[in-house]
């Protein structure tokens, strides 16, 4: 069993609170992604789970055992850092075997484990190299390998892809997902990138200002955001928020309309709008509109979208797709 259970966790630095009342349980084998804007406390939470920071209050158990009194190395965790944190004076091999030496694993065992993990990650040929002689992606693999070799109960990832270029990020993301399937280990993953969060997570935890805003599967969180912040944080282009008379029609203070749920109607039904700008992305087009009734809108349109005539159009949407929020910004069910 390698579940992680956090109750009422708080971390304060003097007056300022980095985390407040955080409760979260991650089941054995689950891929949990902590996502939020920078400064939301997600990395602090991860470092507390790792034992690199101590909580001000609250409880933390890993695998059913209280972890608070345990040193990082005794918690059964392994961590992959944003900067990779490879020891620059050691070869990839020694980087990967460093932790095992402290676990008093015998030399032949270390060798076998390092080599089999290196095989799995495709870095067998790089083991004799030092980090300076490796590319960003290769360093990333060594860092992940160093975590796997320790055979931890829980993997902790701290924005592991943010130093990679876009193409490498996509393939490494896929590899981490595959790795999770292969190892079946519990993983807690911090990112500010919503694409990573959506694609990797079994359980997604959206944080803001040291508090958890919502926990759920990626689709749940996307489809039924708990509040305006979560609705706005996820989704690209950003959700359209409409306030005023039209929101009042739905009995809400504001309503949220996803760009893909808006349709243009040629028949003259719906709300009058005019095209301000079109961003063609190849696979689709983002159409920026201005409507007297709804305000500024973004609409996701097919890639062959083009403005005809003077750009006056009508926008419609299905009532069932509308997200409702009260005056405090919380979702109305």
């Amino acid at each position, binding site marked *: 069993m390698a579940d992680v259970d956090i109750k009422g966790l708080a971390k304060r630095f003097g007056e300022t609170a980095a985390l407040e009342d955080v409760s979260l349980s991650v089941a054995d084998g689950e891929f949990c992604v902590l996502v939020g804007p920078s400064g939301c406390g997600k990395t602090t939470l991860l470092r507390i789970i790792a034992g690199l920071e101590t909580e001000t209050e609250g409880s933390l158990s890993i695998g059913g055992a209280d972890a608070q009194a345990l*040193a990082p190395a005794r918690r059964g965790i392994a961590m992959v*850092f944003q900067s990779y*944190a490879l020891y620059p004076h050691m070869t990839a091999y020694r980087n990967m075997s460093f932790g095992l030496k*402290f676990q008093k694993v015998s030399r032949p065992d270390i060798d076998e484990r390092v080599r089999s993990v290196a095989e799995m990650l495709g870095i067998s040929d790089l083991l004799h190299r030092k980090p300076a002689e490796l590319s960003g992606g290769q360093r990333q693999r060594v860092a992940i390998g160093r975590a796997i070799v320790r055979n931890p109960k829980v993997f902790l990832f701290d924005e592991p892809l943010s130093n990679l270029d876009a193409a490498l990020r996509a393939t490494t993301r896929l590899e981490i997902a595959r790795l999770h399937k292969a190892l079946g280990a519990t993983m807690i993953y911090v990112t500010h990138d919503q694409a990573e969060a959506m694609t990797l997570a079994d359980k997604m935890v959206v944080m803001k200002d040291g508090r958890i805003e919502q926990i759920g599967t990626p689709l749940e969180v996307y489809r039924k955001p708990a509040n305006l912040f979560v609705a706005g944080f996820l989704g690209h282009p950003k959700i359209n928020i409409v306030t005023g008379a039209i929101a009042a029609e739905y009995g809400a203070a504001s309503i949220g309309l996803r760009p893909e749920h808006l349709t243009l109607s040629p028949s003259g039904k719906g709300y009058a709008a005019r095209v301000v700008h079109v961003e063609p992305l190849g696979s689709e087009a983002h159409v920026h509109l201005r409507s007297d009734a709804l305000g500024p809108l973004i609409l996701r349109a097919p890639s062959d979208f083009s403005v005809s005539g003077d750009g006056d159009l009508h926008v419609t949407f299905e009532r069932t797709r509308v997200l409702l929020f009260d005056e405090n910004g919380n979702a109305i069910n």
Partner: protein
Amino acid sequence: MTRTRTRDGVHPGWITLTAFLAPAALIYGVFSVYPLARTIAFSFYRPQEGGAAQFAGLANFVTLFADPYWSEGFFNALWNNLIFFAVHMAVQNPVGIALAALLAVPGLKGRSLYRTTLFLPTMLSVVIVGFIWQLVLSPLWGVGEELMTAVGLGSWFAPWLGEESSALVTLSLISVWQFVGIPMLLVHVALLNIPRDLIDAARVDGAGAFGVFRHVQLPLVMPTVGLVSILTFIGNFNAFDLIYAVKGALAGPNFSTDILGTYFYRTFFGYQLQSGNAEMGATVATVMFLIILAGVMIYLFFMQKRMLRAI
């Protein structure tokens, strides 16, 4: 095909190059290269009756190494200088690293006070340091004996500066005391430059505070320690002032604290009954230069190569 040169792409001409390099080259040449070249050249000459010097090849070096009148003193000074350097390496570096590590302890109160206090002796004049320690260690009126008696070690006190067996080591330790701030400061800066993530990673990997230091921090500050070592080597083999301030040019008792600097001083300028000999002085200076050159070259070839690989 002709290439049009834009204003920005023009290579600097000879005049520009000369104009920018001349001031530095001139100062370096006049105050460093020329005196060095003249010293080396001087070491190949012998004085003649009537004042004119005559070219003598390597005869001065043969005299220095083989004539007992010169070689005894020279090899004594060389050996003492090696001991002087060895004490520095054995005490200054470990103590400097330890102080740097203590300064880097998280949450240490009064960090800058310690740092300043420990670095203070480095900024003092060597003459003052030598004089103060001479007073402290004086068996007649020094506070050293009283201080040691106060903590129950009075019977261990000895006139260390006055005994042949201990004077050199005592002087070395005084020099270490004065200059330990330099390795401390440089290593401290190197420690601060180690990314936090590396230390966190080592902790997650199971290293305790000592393990982190031994396996991560220490190897990463070794290039700095290497740099400090070569600076110490250069300083030690050029040293003169401390010995001269405490023991005078005769470097007593019985030449037991004589190092190359003081030996050179007596050779070149003469002292008491010994008359000055500029050519032999230049020979000693040339040998000192060659020793330091050899040390620096070993450092550059081995340490630098290892450092480059480590980065």
